[in-house]
C-alpha cells in the first residue's frame, strides 16, 4: 500500500512516461485514480470485459455500477431469528479502522462488504484477539476487554476462518490429525491433562473427515498433501466443531472449486440456523449478499453504509464500497 503522497508521485512519473509515448496499463479498483489518470477505461467483471468508456463520459457512480453489475440479489436462505447480542462495537478505532459501530446477534450473518484493504483485516483481527482496540469499546460475548489474546477469544467462543489459510489456519507439515487439534490442543478429545490424547484425536479427526467429506480419508497424511478445497473443509469443520458462539469467516470460499464453495456456504448457514452468529468478510459482493442478514460496508476504515436484508441495493452498496456519496 502506498500513501497518498507516494501514489501522487508514482502517478506523476507514469504520466510523464505516457506523455513521452509509452503505453501504461493501470489495474486498479480505486475510482479516483482511474478517473484522474486514464485516457481510456476498460471495466472488468468476473473475468470479462463488460464495458469500455472514457473518463469524460463517466462518473464514479456510473463506473461503480458497471463494476458491480445489475443483478437481483439472491433469495434469503430463510428469515433469521436474531437472538442476544454476541458482539457489539461502539466507536471502535484500531489501525485503519475508524469509529466503527455495529452489532452482531446470535442467529444472524453480518456481512462485511468492501474493497480489499479498507479495514476488513483489522476488524477480523479485533474480533479474534489478534488485534487491540485503540479507541471505543468492543464487547465480545459479554467481555469488554481492550487486550484479548487469541486464546482468550477462543475460550469465549470465537472461531476463526482466516483469510490466508496456509499462513494462519494450518501447519502444512503437520498431519491432518495434528491440524485438527490446533486451537483446541488443551481440550478433550485432543488432550488428557498435559498429554496428547492420540486416540481421541484420531477418532475426532476421522469423524470430521467423514462429516465434511474430506478426501483422501487419511488422518495421518501431511495436511499439505491435500487439495486447497479439502484443507478448507477441514478448517471450517474444525472451527465449527468447537461449538463456537461467533464465527469470524474471512474470505472463506476464496480460491475454492464450486463444489467446495457450496459446501462451505452450506456449513455457514447451518451454523446460523442453529443460533450461531457469523461475521462474514468477503470481497465477493455476491457472496456477501447471498449469505448475509445484514451488511456493513467499510470504506477507508469507516462504516459508509449498513443495510438489512430486504433493503439490499447492489448499486447503492457498490457506491458505498467505493466511497461515493449519494449520486
Amino acid at each position: 500500500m502506498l500513501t497518498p503522497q507516494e501514489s501522487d508521485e508514482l502517478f506523476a512519473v507514469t504520466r510523464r512516461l505516457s506523455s513521452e509515448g509509452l503505453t501504461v496499463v493501470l489495474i486498479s479498483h480505486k475510482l479516483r485514480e482511474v478517473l484522474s489518470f486514464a485516457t481510456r477505461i476498460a471495466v472488468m467483471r468476473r473475468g470479462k470485459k463488460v464495458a469500455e468508456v472514457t473518463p469524460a463520459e463517466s462518473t464514479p457512480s456510473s463506473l461503480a455500477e458497471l463494476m458491480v453489475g445489475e443483478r437481483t440479489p439472491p433469495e434469503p436462505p430463510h428469515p433469521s431469528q436474531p437472538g442476544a447480542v454476541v458482539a457489539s462495537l461502539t466507536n471502535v478505532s484500531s489501525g485503519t479502522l475508524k469509529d466503527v459501530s455495529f452489532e452482531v446477534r446470535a442467529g444472524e450473518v453480518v456481512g462485511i462488504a468492501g474493497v480489499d484493504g479498507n479495514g476488513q483485516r483489522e476488524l477480523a483481527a479485533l474480533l479474534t484477539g489478534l488485534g487491540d482496540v485503540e479507541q471505543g469499546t468492543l464487547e465480545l460475548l459479554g467481555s469488554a476487554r481492550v487486550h484479548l489474546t487469541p486464546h482468550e477469544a477462543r475460550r469465549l467462543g470465537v472461531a476463526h476462518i482466516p483469510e490466508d489459510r496456509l499462513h494462519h489456519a494450518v501447519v502444512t507439515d503437520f498431519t491432518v490429525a495434528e491440524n485438527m487439534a490446533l486451537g483446541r490442543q488443551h481440550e478433550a478429545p485432543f488432550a488428557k491433562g498435559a498429554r496428547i490424547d492420540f486416540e481421541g484425536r484420531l477418532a475426532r479427526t476421522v469423524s470430521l473427515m467423514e462429516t465434511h467429506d474430506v478426501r483422501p480419508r487419511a488422518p495421518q497424511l501431511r495436511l499439505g498433501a491435500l487439495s486447497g478445497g479439502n484443507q478448507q473443509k477441514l478448517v471450517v469443520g474444525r472451527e465449527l466443531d468447537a461449538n463456537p458462539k461467533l464465527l469470524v469467516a474471512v474470505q472463506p470460499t476464496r480460491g475454492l472449486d464450486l463444489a467446495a464453495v457450496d459446501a462451505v456456504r452450506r456449513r455457514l448457514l447451518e451454523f446460523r440456523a442453529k443460533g450461531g452468529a457469523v461475521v462474514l468478510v468477503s470481497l465477493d459482493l455476491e457472496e456477501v449478499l447471498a449469505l448475509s442478514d445484514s451488511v456493513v460496508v467499510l470504506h477507508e476504515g469507516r462504516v459508509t453504509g449498513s443495510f438489512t436484508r430486504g433493503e439490499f441495493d447492489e448499486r447503492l452498496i457498490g457506491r458505498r464500497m467505493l466511497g461515493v456519496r449519494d449520486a
Partner: protein
Amino acid sequence: MRETLRAALPSVASIITSLLVCFIAVAVLRGGLDVAADAFLAMTWGAFGDFPKFFDGGSSATLLRPLGESATKAALLTLTGLSVAVAFRVGLFNIGAQGQLIVGALAAAVVGAGVELPAPLHVTACLLASALGGALYALGPALLKQYRGVHEVISTIMLNWVALSLVENWLVTGPLRAVTTGDNSIAGTAQIHETASLPRLVGDVSRLNAGILLAVAAAIVLWLWLTRFVGGFEWRAVGANAEAAKSSGVNVGRSVISAMLVSGALAGLAGAVLILGTEQRYPATIGAPYGFDGIAMALIGNGHPLGVLASSLLFGGLRAGGTRMQLFGVHKSFPELIQGLALLLVAARLMWLKVGDRLFKPKGGA
C-alpha cells in the same frame, strides 16, 4: 511410520554417501582399496570395540576402552546436538551452544571444587548449576528476540565470544586459577572433589562414565515431550508456522523463551559432562568446539531427538576410532571430514527426498 522413515532418509543417505566418498578418497590417496579397508576397519574397531582382538582371547578392556572413549564423545555431541535441535523446533537457530557450554562448564568446575557435599548430591548440584548457567546465558538472546526482534543468530554468536573471553581469558587464568603448590604450575581451575566426578560405569578399565546415560535420558525425555505432550506440540507448531500457532491460541513468546532456556540448559549440561566426566577441572582452554559440532548433529539428526542421539553415537564413535587410522597414514581429524561432508549432503534434503520418492513410490500417492 512411513513419514518417519521418509524424514530419516536424507540423513542416512548422506552419511552413507559421505562414508563411501571418504573411503574412495583414502583408497586413491593412500595406495589402494585394501589400505582404505584396513583404515576403515581400524576406525570401526576403535569406535565400537576391538572385536577381532577380543575374540582372539583379549580381555573385556579391548571392547570397553574404545567404547568408553566413543561414549564420552557421543555424550557431549548428543547434549549439544539436542540443544541446537530443541531451538530449531521452535524456529530458532541457536549458534550459541558453545558459549552456553563454556558457562555450564565453568559452573560445574566452580561448584565441583568449591562446595563439599556427599557424592550423589554433589554431582547433582554441579549438573543443576551447569544447566542453570547455560539456561541463563541463553535467556538474553531469547528475550532480545522476543521483545526487541534481535536475530538470535547474531546475539548468540556474539555471546560465544563474550563467554570465551570472560571465562578463558580472565576468570580461569585470573581470579579462579588454581592455587599452585611448590613448583607445579597448574593451568585452569582447581581440581574438583571426587564426590563431584561423574561415576565411572565399569571401574578403571574404561573411561566410560555416567555422562552417556545422562545424554540418552535427555534425548528420550525431549523426544517424549515433543511427541507426546501438548506443550511440545505447541513448540513444534510455533516452529513450523508461528502465525498459525498464534491464531490457534498458542502463547508464542512463552514457547520460544522456554525452548531457548531448555536449549541453553542442555548445552550447559554438556559443559558439566566435559568437566565432571573428563577434565576434572576447567582447563586453560576447552579446545574442542563441541557447541559447534552440536549444530552438525542437530542438522544430520534432522532436529529429531532420537536422530540427534543416533548421529552423535555414530560420529562420537568415528571420532574416537579415527585416531587409529593414523597407522595407515590418515590424519586423526579424518572423521571430522566425514562429518562435514555428511552435513553438506544433508543440506540437500529435498534432493534426497525426491530420489527417495522416486525409488519407493507409495502406491496411490498424491
